[in-house]
């Protein structure tokens, strides 16, 4: 059964026809063509698909598209404003917090939610927060450094 779903994506109104079983991540990638949000698993564990829904981080593979009706949705494409990188994005580059880049959008979206709730997270808090985001490339150390630095830049 196809349904029209409408929400705000990175500040712009969007809508698309989806099936009732379409996942939010599928709608974002396939119908709305925003491919910065990735899919790395089918059991809600890898975190490659993390986006923001109404300001909180969410695994978009774990939500149906229809559940996002009317929501305020943010993806990695909306993080840099007017072509200027967000401090968290800067920090990932500066601290070499990415290699293949596949986990990176989810990591950044997840980190942003952490910092919103805890502006000065400790290393342990960052490591624990990120257990829902798998990275096979970096060994996490530089991701953790990047998140700390990004958080600091966001405070100042």
């Amino acid at each position, binding site marked *: 059964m196809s349904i029209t779903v409408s929400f705000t994506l990175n500040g712009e109104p969007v809508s698309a026809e989806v*099936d009732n*079983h*379409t996942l939010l991540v599928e709608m974002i*990638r*396939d119908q709305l063509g*925003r*491919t*910065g*949000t*990735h*899919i*790395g*698993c*089918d*059991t809600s*564990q*890898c975190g*490659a698909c993390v986006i923001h829904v109404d300001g909180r981080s969410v695994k978009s593979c774990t939500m149906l598209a229809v559940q996002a009706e009317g929501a305020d949705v943010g*993806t*990695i*494409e909306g*993080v*840099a404003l007017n072509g200027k*990188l967000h401090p968290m*994005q800067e920090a*990932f*580059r*500066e601290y*070499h917090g*990415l*290699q*293949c*880049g*596949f*986990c*990176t*959008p989810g990591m*950044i979206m997840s980190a942003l939610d952490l910092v919103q709730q805890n502006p000065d997270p400790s*290393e*342990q808090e*960052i*490591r*624990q927060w*990120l*257990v829902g*985001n*798998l*990275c*096979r*490339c*970096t*060994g*996490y*150390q*530089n*991701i*953790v450094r990047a998140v700390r630095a990004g958080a600091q830049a966001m405070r100042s």
Partner: protein
Amino acid sequence: MTENGIGAAVRRKEDHRFITGQGQYTDDINRPNQLYAHIIRSPLPHARIRGIELKAALDMPGVVAVLTGKDMVDDGIGGLPCGWGVNNKDGSPMTEPGHPPLAADTVRYVGDQVAVVLADKRSIARDAAELVDIDYEELPAAASLSAASAEAAPAVWEEAPDNVCFDWEIGDAAATDEAFASAAHVSSIDIVNSRLIPNAIEPRVAIGEYDSGRDEYTLYTTSQNPHVIRMLMGAFVLSIPEHKLRIIAPDVGGGFGSKICHYAEEAIVTWASKRVNRPVKWTADRSESFMSDAHGRDHISHAELALSKDGDFLGLRVRTKANLGAYLSTFGPAVPTYLYATLLAGTYKTPAIYCEVKGMFTHSVPVDSYRGAGRPEACYLLERLVDRAARETGIDPLEIRRRNFIPRDGFPYQTPVLLEYDSGDYHACLDKCLELADYKGFEKRRAESAERGKLRGVGLSTYIEACGIAPSNVAGALGARAGLYESGTIRVNPTGSVTVLTGSHSHGQGHETTFAQLVTEALGVDFDNVDVVHGDTGKIPFGMGTYGSRSLAVGGMALMAALEKIKTKSRKIAAHLLEASEDDVEFVDGQLRVAGTDRTVSFGDVALAAYVPHNYPLDVLEPGLDETAFYDPKNWTFPAGCHICEVEIDPDTGVVEIDRFTAADDFGRIINPMIVEGQVHGGLTQGIGQALYEQCVYDDSGQLLTGSYMDYCMPKADNLPNFEVTTNTTLCTHNVLGVKGCGEAGTIGSTPAVINAVVDALSELGVNDVPIPATPERVWDAIRTAAHNRAVSA
């Protein structure tokens, strides 16, 4: 050193697109009018296909076709080829069964491809697959090494009734026996090297597209080596001439060896796209990745070390069974032979080594390269055995290693197992690592842990690896069915910017940055004016791709050779422009200067003159400034190093926590230390993953138990310590930069360092072995068993 040249921690060019969500991975690509493929896979480890009923699926609206192995046979489609032949002890070739992309009559592992559904939507393809009725006659199966080598084990292949694909040997058996006969002490160990699943976070994807107007095919695929795929799939499977087949491997989200192989799905979508004359896209679910990506490791070995009374290593004897899976994957046979047993000398001058390896077929996913590929297996075995020998002889583990290291002045060093190491300084790496790890402070920390009721242990390993594999003719003599050179093009554009085309492929390694640094250093061209292109057979010269830590040591050297050609030609052009002799023209900071004068011309002006040759020596020089080189390595390169791990174990729960991990590595010259450090971090994590968390498990019936991230434990951010890493450089002697490679080292040295630390922590309880992964349950069990044994013997 220029600001962005060799040795600078330049921030990566590629990062901008990845941090802004603009990367283009294969699944981000959609072709007009494309169909979605769903692969139907065998739910059984071994069965005959009696029949397939397609009607219900074909009747479903939105389904365009359902294709089976029989359709492939009818179309004359070939099998997936194996890229490396290994011979038996008697010189006869290994057993090499066919590998149809879609099984036509028999399935041989859970996940084997049986049919493909093509539909307008992914969900329709998936639903229709449920309606395909396959009548299987279930047959007995053996997925593990022990099951496949049991008496009367079910045979995976009729032509290999005992499941032995090859029975191979290396080294001098007689000399090794002699060494054992004269030994004062023999230490031995039984080692199980667990089976792993590579698990790049990007699942595999393949999109086939056929252009009927031009009779041309394009395959977009998640590959580490697009030209290798073009060669294998074009020549052996689909019979498509290379000029009609283009392979594009765009941004790839990690490979770790699993994206080297030529996979069935690549051939299936390419073939199907012509049959239905529409693009066909297949994207793996993670559960499919678990049961269809090539797995890694999976050895069972028995190893013995003969020692003199002073602790000198006299001989090493190893017997290994290696699981190859049900079919021979692209480089499957090379991994447990030439990439494994040739590394058994390690960093030591053991004079006699003999190793025999039985490659076994089992009803499991094909096994191939996983980061390190053979070398971690060799290092794990050797470093565990050396530690055991140290314990048994009462010689300090540092001392026994130092005693047996190939000395600083011992290079070049010919090992008894084929390889000749060109350079290294194992003492220096060890010393540097000890210092950084504060090894001296260990006993104090051990006492502090004991006060808290915890057991602390320290473990070390020294490793060697062989990278940038071989001169092609040597590899060919060993069974490689392809060359192992690399290509590189330096294309200077008319206004002086540079486009680099490389046969190497980056899937996280940062080549776009490292290779640009080479160009900046050589030509003085601004870093921002250099772009690196890779991953598209339609754009780059024929290249062999990225694996075995070869990109810089082989691909980088091709670029260096091309840069040399550019410099030579530029000097000729500059000589003409400056009315000087070519021999007097030198490159200085992006300028060409007549030596000893202030007469210069910029490199940009030379480039312009080459493309707008109005004032140009046309009689002796072609216009243009675009040079390609192919580089075939003169030898392997030999990165080496030392890893030290400190663990703390809770004896009540068996939980192992890594408190400190230190690595000192010799990678030869380093181009970008930031990138190198990142490679080490990632490698260490995968090695630690094997030591403590990860394991692929099949049950006795041949079902894959670890089929998702719920069952296969990936290392997570809170499982890991901060690593301390440093380097100690000796230069490679046979390439112009002295580089060795750094991609796999972390994975090779870390697993034994962790387990040696775990065994050290538990040794006071009488534990002398812990299997990998050393999960809390296994550690707890080892502690209980040792306590029980003590009680019984008391």
